[in-house]
């Protein structure tokens, strides 16, 4: 019906009866009627802004944030996090025990855990699924999540061929045992990552080899999953919808009937869709838009500290950046508070460390602060008094509004405080990555989001062999602290002290300029309950419900 409308519209424009064009358009307005949000509230369907088109929903192959939300609705691991407190709670496993040395975990799988086709979820399912994830040919991006498990890395690298040697074992139908190389206090958190979710063996094998990725087993008509929701419909670049799984063990408590995930890569589009009542919740909020919401509709704005650090990598391999004093000068001369309060609308928290504060009680070392006088002194000591003789440097960033704004402000700060020449260069994402990986940069904007709540996820990336490092920083003492001492620490406090020592060492070398700790920012309609703000920006759709209140379905 609507296909013919634009033509009608322009015929009318042609005959210059613009009035009738407006009439017909306003008529359309009338038939348009209910918004997604109003309809969703009535039918129990959550309309969820989801950043990008998911590459796929195979838990062992997926990598991104959009996939994360969807797979979390479709599958369930042994344990999961409480969406409010992030405490570990039972999921497929109803209970577990940990050996005294912290190396052996024994899980008991609940009796009523079933797949969506009615099959029971067994310990063998986990054993087979984890075996599958460790097949090199599957090329699972998050396979390193398995590496705390005994011999898992060796098996993956084919130094070991017998899977029986890996610390993964189904003892009986309901008992599943995992043995670690060394105690890893964050191991239970890993179990809630999709890389360690179970998949349904018969279904996977029906549509291809176990180690074959992106086969048809994940299509809506084929997939068998064990989470609170089922894959219902997948319309590329439009939406992906899931519906309630009646066979889920806790189905009686699941309140939503369905969720529609919209892949929206443009923040301004997403925000306008939200305002037009087409979305219940957005993945992002454009920074320029924040003040308006703060003033007019603060109840819709959900901002919370987020486990991530925004930083500039400094290429320590470049002669004019090799001197640690230059790098320290660069870091100390950035007024983070002023940057955040002005350009970034006060959204984030200044960072003077790479590990965000408060990870399982971890407090970062106090190494430096904003101190322009000291920065000038350091630069002068390095042989460039007042910036004289300094060849200048280039900041590279991938094309993005926020990165551009930050770079412009920092460019000016470095110029004014240090008297050095700073150029900016934006690059398309892949060129930016390529230049960063090959060391073809001076300073490069970067960020890191923790994979789990533990300092380790922010520390092991700076070891010499890490692919994320990309600064040229390489320090044996640091590597030893992070890779050997911390995992074998005798207790939690000692472990934190080791990390603190490692981070102090790292910050003294200053291969990165930490700028701020992230905040997650979303818009959520008042009818949405149970999407809690937390440090991981983690949701569990099991607990989400839609409670329409007396106010209208539109947020504005």
């Amino acid at each position, binding site marked *: 019906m609507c296909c013919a409308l634009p033509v009608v519209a322009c015929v009318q424009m042609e005959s210059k009866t613009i009035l009738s064009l407006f009439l017909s358009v306003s008529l359309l307005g009338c038939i348009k009627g209910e918004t997604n949000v109003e309809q969703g509230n009535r039918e129990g369907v959550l309309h969820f802004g989801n950043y990008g088109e998911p590459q*796929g929903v195979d838990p062992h192959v997926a990598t991104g944030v959009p996939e994360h939300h969807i797979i979390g609705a479709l599958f369930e691991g042994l344990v999961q996090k409480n969406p409010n407190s992030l405490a570990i709670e039972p999921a497929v496993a109803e209970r577990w025990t940990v050996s005294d040395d912290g190396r052996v975990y024994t899980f008991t799988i609940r009796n009523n855990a079933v797949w969506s086709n009615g099959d029971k979820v067994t310990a063998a399912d986990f054993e087979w699924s984890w075996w599958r994830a460790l097949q090199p040919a599957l090329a699972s991006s998050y396979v390193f999540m398995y590496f705390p498990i005994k011999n898992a890395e060796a098996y993956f690298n084919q130094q070991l061929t017998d899977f029986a040697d890996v610390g993964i074992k189904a003892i009986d139908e309901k008992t599943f045992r995992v043995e670690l190389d060394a105690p890893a206090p964050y191991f239970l958190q890993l179990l809630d990552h999709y890389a360690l979710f179970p998949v349904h063996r018969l279904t996977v094998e029906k549509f291809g080899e176990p180690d074959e990725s992106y086969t048809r087993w994940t299509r809506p008509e084929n997939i068998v999953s064990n989470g609170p929701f089922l894959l219902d419909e997948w319309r590329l670049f439009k939406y992906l919808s899931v519906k309630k799984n009646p066979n889920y063990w806790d189905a009686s408590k699941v309140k939503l009937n369905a969720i529609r995930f919209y892949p929206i890569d443009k923040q301004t589009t997403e925000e306008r869709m939200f305002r037009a009542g087409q979305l219940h919740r957005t993945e992002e909020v454009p920074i320029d838009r924040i003040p308006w919401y703060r003033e007019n509709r603060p109840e819709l704005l959900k901002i919370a500290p987020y486990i991530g650090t925004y930083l500039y990598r400094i290429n320590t391999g470049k002669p004019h950046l090799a001197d640690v004093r230059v790098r320290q000068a660069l870091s100390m001369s950035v007024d983070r508070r002023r940057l955040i309060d002005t350009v970034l609308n006060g959204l984030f928290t200044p960072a003077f460390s790479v590990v965000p504060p408060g990870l399982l009680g971890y407090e970062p070392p106090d190494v430096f602060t904003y101190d322009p006088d000291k920065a000038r002194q350091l630069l002068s000591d390095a042989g460039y008094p007042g910036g004289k003789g300094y060849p200048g440097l280039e900041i590279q960033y991938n094309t993005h509004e926020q990165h551009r704004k930050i770079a412009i402000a920092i460019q000016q700060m470095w110029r004014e405080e240090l008297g050095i020449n700073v150029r900016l260069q934006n690059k398309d994402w892949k060129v930016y990555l390529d230049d960063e*990986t090959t060391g073809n940069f001076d300073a490069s904007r970067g960020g890191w989001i923790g994979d789990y709540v533990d300092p380790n996820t922010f520390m092991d990336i700076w070891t010499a062999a890490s692919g994320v490092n990309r600064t040229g920083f390489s320090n044996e003492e640091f590597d030893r602290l992070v890779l050997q001492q911390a995992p074998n620490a005798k207790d939690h406090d000692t472990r934190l002290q080791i990390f603190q020592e490692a981070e102090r060492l790292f910050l003294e070398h200053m291969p990165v300029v930490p700028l701020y700790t992230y905040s997650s920012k979303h818009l959520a309609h008042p009818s949405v309950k149970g999407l809690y703000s937390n440090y991981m920006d983690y949701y569990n759709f099991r607990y989400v419900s839609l409670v329409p209140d007396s106010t209208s379905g539109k947020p504005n």
Partner: protein
Amino acid sequence: MLRFIVFRLLQAIPVLFVVISATFFLVRQAPGGPFDAEKPVIPAVKRALEAKYNLDQSLFQQYLSYMGDLVQGDMGPSFKYPGWAVQDLIASGFPVTAELGIYALLIALLVGTSAGVFASLKPNTRQDYIPMSVAMIGICMPTFLLGPLLVLVFGIWLEWLPISGWGDLPGDKILPSITLGAAYAAYIARLSRGGMLEVMSQDYIRTARAKGLPEHVVVLKHALRGGLVPVVAYLGPAFAGLLSGSFVVETIFQIPGLGRFYVQAAFNRDYTMILGTTIFLSTLIVLFNLLSDVIATWMNPRLRDSLRGGPQ
């Protein structure tokens, strides 16, 4: 005429061959690969991925096997969305973009030619300036500006029309079609005005006038045919441009079209997708350029006569 068309279609084969081959080797030279990410995959995984997509073979071997598959109609899986074959993705995106492009072009033609022809009848008067100025809004307002503006006015403030989607809610096709058509309307208005003025001073129009034919007959029967030749010549590239250039509109309005695939494939270094969309679009470009040449020839009396004897 038929010979001319067959001749041109035969020429398309080497053109497409060069386009495919050049694109194949060019995209591999661009920095960054399809599997590069902020958090790089561990080397063993990367090797496995490369083996899976034959990236471990020599470039020439890959080229040969790609061409071999292509001849059988297989463009391979997309690197970014490996669950789908490139031809399936194109098949899902093209109808949407084509529909959008047709509406946009219709709007552009109707608004553009009427403004241009109307203006050309009394050049340098108010009858010229006003319609031309209106038509030019489309160029002053680039798509990335007009789209959000229409969204704000008609979607958010007046709440008349949906602001995203395609075929999901009634009326959601109106704003994107107008947005995409506006820029082309301005071009067409300018071209048709220029073409009409050119023709109106030609001898055969003077003759027609001298014969005492009424002005509307002169304009509609004689002048339009020649006067719109530049517009027709422009239509071929314009439609092809609409298909690949609908990216911005598709992004603003959340439309699952080919324009987004085409642009995002380049940014993602999705080699097979870049090639697939390029092959598809270049075939269309060749066809549309041919079509517009045929129509232009038909509309130009002298050329038509010369072509009766075949091409040269």
